[in-house]
């Protein structure tokens, strides 16, 4: 993550927090509604809409951000900690990395064995090949 990214997300995070707070206050006003509470309720509704408009403006700043759908569907929507997804991804990447590394090593050994065996059958060609390839063989 580059250093400019926290600044990029900061307005979005602030607006989201403001929106959540207004929603919470609306819930409190509505859950135990008082006769004189209509005016504050209308005010909160206006604030909610303006907060949504602010959030809508923020989307231009984060157009290039890509969020994996698996993270949203399988973790956030299921009430799970999204950091578990990051952990799983890293563990999968390390396992795959090890697997590919092993394959590369196996192919390297195979190449070495093949060149050795071919050198027995086609010594001249392999000598020339080694000359062309240099240290790579």
């Amino acid at each position, binding site marked *: 993550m580059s250093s400019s990214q926290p600044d990029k997300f900061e307005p979005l995070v602030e607006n989201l927090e403001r929106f*959540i707070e207004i929603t919470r206050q609306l*819930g409190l006003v509505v859950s*135990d509604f008082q006769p004189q509470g209509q005016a504050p309720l209308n005010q909160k509704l206006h604030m909610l809409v303006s907060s949504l408009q602010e959030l809508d403006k923020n989307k231009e700043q984060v157009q290039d951000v890509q969020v994996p759908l698996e993270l949203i569907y399988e973790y956030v929507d299921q009430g799970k*900690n999204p*950091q578990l997804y990051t952990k799983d991804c890293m563990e999968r*990447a390390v396992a795959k990395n090890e697997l590919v590394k092993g394959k590369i090593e196996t192919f390297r050994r195979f190449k070495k064995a093949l060149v050795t065996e071919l050198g027995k059958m086609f010594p001249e060609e392999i000598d020339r090949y080694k*000359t062309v*390839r240099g240290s790579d063989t």
Partner: protein
Amino acid sequence: MSFFKRSPSDSSSNYGGIPSKMPTPIRQRSPMPTKQFLSPPSVDPEPFYLLKDPPISGPGSEVTGETHMISHYGLEHSYNKFSTKKLKEQLSAFLPLLPGNIDTVSSQDNSSLQSVIEKPPITKEITTFTTGMLQGFKLHPGSIPDQYKLLHHQPAKKHKHKKHKRDHRIPELSEPMSAGAEAGGDNGHEKKHKKTKKHGDQDGEKKKRDKKKKKKKARQDPMHPGMPATHEGSGPGRP
């Protein structure tokens, strides 16, 4: 390195059962441009085709699966953090300041982000409420039923039950005892039996001694010469 082109001098020789006249393979073009072929000018690269350039090793070279990706991208700190630290599974652990119970499956109350992505609720521009629109938000005084007070419902925090030290100690102490009893359960019983037997034997001996004393007394007592001792008739020691 896929194909070798034989020199004419080799065509007569037979390499270990391989037919000497092999069909000349169709020469294929390498996907790599010929300019990139690594071949010193002094060496004729003619016998080899489909020969790719070897990967250039060193800094800035192509990243392959051989390199340790976590360290290559500088993610060791994050990896160590996630692999060593045990993460809490709940969403509320990641968003602790969010009001309400957010750890439930969102499809239960139709609050899933998936539904927002698939069917965006607002497709037009977001406009402010007019006075006429706000008429629909006129509420009657009073509180709503408890089941709708979702925002007040905080997730119940799990209090860890404090385990008393004694609770730990008792099984620890009792386990070897019970294990010993299980291992040598018969011996334990034998010991108990032996003790009871000993106790019973001691009592019997005392009784015998008392009887003998009484007999002696009865014999020696001049006041009651003919008085028989208790259980005298049934006594085994009577001559």
